[in-house]
């Protein structure tokens, strides 16, 4: 980034928090990519960024300094999950190293959560490395709980926690349309019969979210 030296000067600057806007891709996307890929072992292709920003640009927030330089960014999506709930997902979050520890990420995440709440999200989920103290602290302070540990989730062999924040009562028992009456684990509907049950192997494709915290 090369600007850590003048970070101090900028400290005095009030940051602006702005929603992403697709018409400004050329202004912001290169900076977003650069900021995010710093913490990745492998870069995402431009397609991944567009996948989020084109569909959910309004769930992306940026922190900019007075010179309009990108200091932090959060990227999300929001869509029905196959297990039922309308699920928000925080896909990327990063703050420039020189500006960390000042609540910038917290602010960005809060804005994203508010936006998703306004759009009626049932829950918000994300994954983060089990050793990422800053990220765990940030999300858990806001109300996220750890729901599972994911073995060897990252390329470096590290494990992740999945974090979840419920926004609404009844989220745990939400089912996809057409399956509202089926209790968890028994997606066929109707009372369980001896012959019908063939073990969880058959539930592949329905997805774990229906059954697992």
């Amino acid at each position, binding site marked *: 980034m090369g600007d850590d030296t003048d970070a101090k000067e900028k400290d005095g600057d009030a940051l602006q928090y702005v929603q992403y806007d697709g018409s400004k891709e*050329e202004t912001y996307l290169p900076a977003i990519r650069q900021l995010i890929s710093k913490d990745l072992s492998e870069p995402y292709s431009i397609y991944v960024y567009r996948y989020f920003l084109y569909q959910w640009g309004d769930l992306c927030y940026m922190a900019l300094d007075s010179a309009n330089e990108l200091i932090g960014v959060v990227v999300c999506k929001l869509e029905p999950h196959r297990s039922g709930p309308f699920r928000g997902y925080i896909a990327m*979050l990063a703050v420039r190293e020189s500006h960390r520890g000042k609540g910038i990420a917290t602010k960005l995440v809060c804005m994203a959560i508010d936006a998703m709440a306004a759009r009626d999200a049932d829950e918000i989920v994300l994954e983060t490395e089990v050793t990422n103290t800053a990220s765990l602290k940030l999300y858990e*302070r806001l*109300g996220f709980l750890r729901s599972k540990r994911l073995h060897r989730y990252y390329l470096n062999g590290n494990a992740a926690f999945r974090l979840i924040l419920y926004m609404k009562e009844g989220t745990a028992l939400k089912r996809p349309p057409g399956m509202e009456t089926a209790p968890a684990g028994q997606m066929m509907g109707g009372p369980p019969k001896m012959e019908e*049950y063939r073990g969880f192997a058959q539930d592949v494709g329905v997805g*774990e979210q229906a059954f697992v*915290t």
Partner: protein
Amino acid sequence: MADPSLLHHDAAARDTDAPIASNGTGPAFASAESSSFAQTSLPLRQAPRRGAPPQIHDVTEKFTRACQALDVGQLIKDEYFTLFESIGAIEIMDAKMDSGFLQPGETLEDDFDLLAPLLPEELIGIMDQLLSYEMAWHTGYPLSQTLFTSVYIDRLLYPEPKTIPQAQFYRGDIPDDKRPGTLLDVLRAYCLALIKGCDYVIAKIMARDYFEEEDFATHTYNRVLFVQVPIDVFLRELDASVEMIEDSDLKIDDELRSAIIARLHFRKSFLCALDPECPLELLSNFWPPVLPHVDKVNDTQHLGRTVPGSFSTKIQRRLASTVPPRPIVEVEFKDALQTLKQLCADCEEATRFKDLPTDPLEYQSFLWTFASRQPAPLTYSRSYLSNILFDPYILNAPVSLPLEDVKSFVFHESPILDPANWALSPPRNPLMPKPPRLQFALLIDEFVERVGQPYLDLWVALGQNRCRLRRMLTHVIIAWDMLQQDAVFVDADLVVHALQLNIAEEVMDSPLLTWVYIKKLWMIEKVIILGFEQDIYLPDEHAGMYYFLSLTAGKRKDALQRCAEHLSERCIQFVQKSRYQDTNDTDKKLAFIDSELQQATGISAFAKALHGFYVIANYLHLLPCPGRPFSTEELRYELRMKPFLTLQPPEVPPFEEFQTALQPYGAYSDPKPSINDDLKQEHSLPWTNIDASLKAAKDAFADVKKRGAKGAKAKGVEQAWNKETQGMLASCVALGVAVAGLKSAVKNTELGRGPQLKVELPTVDKRYVGGWVVPKIVKE
């Protein structure tokens, strides 16, 4: 952050908790045959299609024209194009993503001369480096970043040789003076055996349930690892190499000579141990001989010298063009050897499975204990054990394994299981009612068949990595919940026929339901305990989760109590009828039930004590408690209880009840003033409750310990069982110390002023038993 490794991952496999690879588990191990067992089939990876040559159309111009119609940033995709697919995209001509991209002046291949003669030191160096990569592969990295970076391995496999003699470091004819020398030949034999070993490993892992890339990468990038070639071919090559090295005409330093021989011996013994054809009864002979060779390899590692250029990332370009270039995985040799030793030790331990008594509860203890080994067994070792467990010899035991399990809890010398029932034939006239005893047999057969799949599911779950185990258990619990609903009907029918025979007093109330329920509750307890072990619960959640654990174990205790009471009644009945042998047998069964009962009592009581302690710690603000502006207690409770919300009977207490148990003095931030006095008084309810629970827990665990591993049906894992039981007792003592510390500190300070105290929660490696977080009180 989204997982960068999701790049190019099999998305479907990643996001589901069911295993992606699974094969039939063979015929039912139950008495009745069941076709459903053979069909746990799941989506399998597609084999690359071969056939008509592809036709190539140039679309450049059309494509360019079409693109002009797009705005910058605009995305074209259909509804089914998922995030995972988008993550799989790479950018051509970006050096970090495009493995085919050449930097200016970079060559496509290395010009390493595979036929250049090797020094003995170099041979050792290469062998050891190969071993390191082999172990890195075992820990989960793909072959493309490990073994397949070896130029020697690459050449042996590609272009694909038709026969083993063709598998050389060259192809076709070469002049005699270029022919590889002895040391290269030895390296070749070593590599061949290594490759065959990889083939065996893949075969064994793929034969059982595992998660591709999470547990292990079986991908071979269309290289065929000598699948069809039998083991003796490789053993002969190794033997011939040993002879060549031993030959006194070969001028080489003796130390180096014996170091090379040690590596060949190791390779041979290891390959034999990996051989999937090895019959069950011989398995245990093959692991012990490996270790001494490993030690010799270890002792002579310093003799080796690396050969620059003998490993190269450039080979990746020819393996998988759609994956970004990835670095070679760096492993320390000593770590690799540690991994290898662990692998050998775990597999050797797994072979002990076949010597267990034919008792599914001993099996269950073994599976659980194996899964709990530290460090966690590698995927290969877990598959190795699963392959033994699912061996027809074990699975097709002469007795129905699930039924044996049922018997241990609820049917004791029961008329329902009288073998004579199975000897009866139905009446000629189908309209005539079947005799009640025959009905018993039919009902039991039906139930046993019904149990089969959920029962296997539990075993499969116990063979997964620890994170998966916890999540998979929550699925299995749902399956057992459905089983429980079915058991009700079978129980009702059993009663009808028992009444007809006038032997109702010999049959326990709802026997099958009780059995299913006991097993289901056990699984719920394990899910909670694993949650603690995996740091799923934040400190301020401990009180609630231990409360829930205490409730659950308490219900299991009650169910076991009913079993024990029935058994005692049976004993009296036998004595009255002078059936002394039956009395004796029943007594033995009672020993197991009592052990289980004490265990459940201990768990429930100890969890209750912890619950009590953490509640007080919450009131005293001794645990971090995040502000959580976006959440409420109700919402968090719902999230936590999600896996159990649908269970019948309801296991999750209503929120109000939960809250009352957790906040007896009202909100932590604003407690009733009476808490002050109560906490200052040693004999107030909050403290006496904890003390009583702790005492009950200690007594129960002491009793369990006295009854021993055999009583608990854990004889096969006695050492580990003793250690855990001892650990539970030690945990009780440690909690006693913490409680005393807190009590005395609170006595001397005003509440709210905050006693100068800190509660320390030990990390998992510092606990006596992983799932039991016993706090420590530290005075500041």
